[in-house]
């Protein structure tokens, strides 16, 4: 993953590198061409000038030989020699690389020459003029070095500019990002994003605020819907229950009918429990149960234990309690009661006959373990209706409620399976 800002930086760097690399041969060609043209022109001018003077002075053959000798000594590569050919040739330009007698460290040098012919006293002469030219490879090195310097300057500039742009222009974006990270639909109803003068970010913020508002509304409505729906269901469930109570009083109730009634009561109880739990869940989510009290966790364990003792005994479960210290928490009475009751009844329900339950309270952690054969899937454990067991009386909401209560008070709940024991532990 790269940061957005580093992506164009990388691209710009690579692009400028390519362009600069391409520019090097181009520069070399251009410079060399200018060089050569300029020298050719210079050679030509010198030649014309020399020709004119040679013609005007009407030198003798001997004079010219002497001139050639002196000239050649003064400026190597320049010569005027008698041509054997009588025909008049065209001027010709040549380039030669040979050692330079003056420049010993440089090894070989490149020379640009111009060869021409002229008649002096009716005799043909060949005249040559040479000038030292900078070699192309040296030009290349020089240009490459300069280009590299500029490239480094460019990169440093890019990085600095990028950083400056990042700090200034992208600041609102990072602020928005931070707000979004902190946003929690279960807690916040709206999101406040910092105003910015950059149009795109302002549009982004506006769209985000709108999106969050719509989603939050939908979420609130859904929560309210669950609460209202379960409220509405209470009455028909209550009616069913009271009708069954009356039905069982009838004199004509045979054992067979009684069994049917009983079989209606069981799913009805389950329906009633699911509904009650949905209501509790909705209410915790809708942030009801807000009164806080100072409560002792061990007290709730004892009460819950007494209430459930019948179920513990009927399954012949061994319970070991290891309460090392008391934990005092600030919580809602009903919610803490629900939390402990759900945990304990959960453990009882999922323990087989003759099983074992261990309750441990140590420091600020409550451990409730029960014997079981296989580990549960951690991921789905606290999801609603993710019933992992075949237990029919389960509402599928017990652990979801536990999780919700734990979240409400920012406690933590975890599960692990070890040595044949399922353990749920809550850190208060």
């Amino acid at each position, binding site marked *: 993953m790269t940061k957005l800002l580093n992506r164009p930086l990388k691209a710009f760097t690579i692009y400028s590198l390519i362009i600069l690399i391409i520019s090097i041969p181009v520069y070399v060609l251009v410079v060399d061409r200018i060089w050569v043209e300029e020298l050719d022109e210079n050679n030509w001018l010198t030649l014309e000038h020399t020709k004119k003077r040679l013609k005007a002075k009407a030198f003798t053959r001997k004079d010219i030989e002497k001139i050639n000798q002196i000239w050649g000594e003064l400026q190597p590569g320049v010569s005027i020699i008698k041509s054997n050919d009588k025909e008049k040739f065209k001027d010709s330009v040549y380039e030669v690389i040979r050692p330079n007698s003056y420049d010993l460290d440089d090894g070989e040098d490149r020379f640009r020459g111009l060869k021409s012919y002229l008649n002096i006293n009716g005799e043909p002469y060949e005249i040559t003029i040479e000038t030292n030219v900078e070699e192309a490879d040296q030009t290349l090195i020089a240009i490459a070095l300069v280009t590299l310097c500029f490239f480094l300057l460019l990169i440093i500039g890019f990085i600095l500019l990028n950083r400056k742009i990042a700090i200034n222009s992208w600041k609102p974006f990072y602020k928005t990002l931070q707000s979004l990270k902190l946003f929690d639909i279960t807690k916040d109803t709206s999101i406040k994003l910092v105003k910015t003068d950059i149009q795109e970010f302002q549009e982004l913020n506006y769209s985000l605020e709108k999106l969050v508002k719509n989603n939050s509304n939908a979420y609130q409505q859904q929560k309210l819907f669950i609460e209202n729906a379960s*409220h509405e269901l*209470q*009455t028909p*469930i*209550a*009616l*069913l*229950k*009271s*009708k069954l*109570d*009356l039905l*069982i*009083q009838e004199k004509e*109730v045979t*054992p*067979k009918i*009684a*069994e049917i*009634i*009983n079989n209606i*009561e*069981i799913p009805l*109880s*389950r329906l*009633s*429990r699911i509904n*009650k739990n949905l*209501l509790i869940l909705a*209410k915790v989510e809708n942030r*009801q*149960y807000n*009164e806080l009290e100072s409560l002792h966790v061990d007290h709730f364990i004892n009460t819950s234990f007494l*209430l*459930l003792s*019948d*179920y513990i*005994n*009927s*399954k012949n479960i061994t319970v070991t309690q290891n309460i090392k210290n008391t934990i005092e928490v600030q919580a*809602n*009475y*009903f919610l803490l009661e629900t939390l402990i*009751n759900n945990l304990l*009844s959960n453990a*009882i*329900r999922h323990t087989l006959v003759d099983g074992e339950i261990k309750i441990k309270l140590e420091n600020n952690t409550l451990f409730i373990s029960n014997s079981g054969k296989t580990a549960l899937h951690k991921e789905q454990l606290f999801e609603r209706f993710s019933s992992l067991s075949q*237990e*029919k*009386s389960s*509402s599928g909401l*017990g652990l979801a409620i536990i999780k919700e209560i734990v979240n409400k008070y920012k406690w933590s709940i975890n599960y692990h399976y070890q040595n044949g024991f399922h353990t749920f532990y809550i850190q208060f």
Partner: protein
Amino acid sequence: MKILIIEDEIELAKDIMNYLSSEQYLCEWVTNYNNAIEKIFTHEYDCILLDLMLPGGNGISILETLKQQRKQEGVIIISAKNSLEDKIKGLKLGADDYLAKPFHQAELAARIESLIRRKQFDSNNIITQKELSIDIHSKTVTVNNQLVNLTKKEFDLLLFFIGNKNKVLSKSTLAEHLSGDFADMFDNHDFVYAHVKNLKRKLKESNCNDYLKTIYGTGYKWEQ
């Protein structure tokens, strides 16, 4: 004894009246706030069953009215709103008990019985049925003046049966009475058998008549 049922759910109100009618109770029934207020001003009741969500007004304000009028009626709130705030608010305003819907008729009958008894015999709180005598206050049971040693749950069951004389009580009703909200978390209510069996045995050993009948496949019935 006169009972006023303030409940807008007609069927539920009828069921309550049905269940209670065979007892010594005389039930009256209103479905809205205004009629309830009217009844309260013009009549005296032993017990009022009050639903909180009523057409025309909130049940809580009926409680407030009762308090202002310094009425002595016992009030049991029967509400679908099983919220703690309402419960506390109701009890603070002078309601005697709170029963969340859905409830068993037997549970309601037992609560009414217990409420009326508390209101009527403050000092001498003893229920007698021939040789059997139950002291609510000291939680003791005697048969022919001989003390019967009952556990807390057996005592609770006995009172529950007395509060629902001649009614058939199913195992799940008894389980719910004994373990409240927990009962419907479990499929197995067999522990009820054990408690009833022990209660029957203890009463029989004390030479008490066999008032507690087992109705095959259905549940139990206290006969008087």
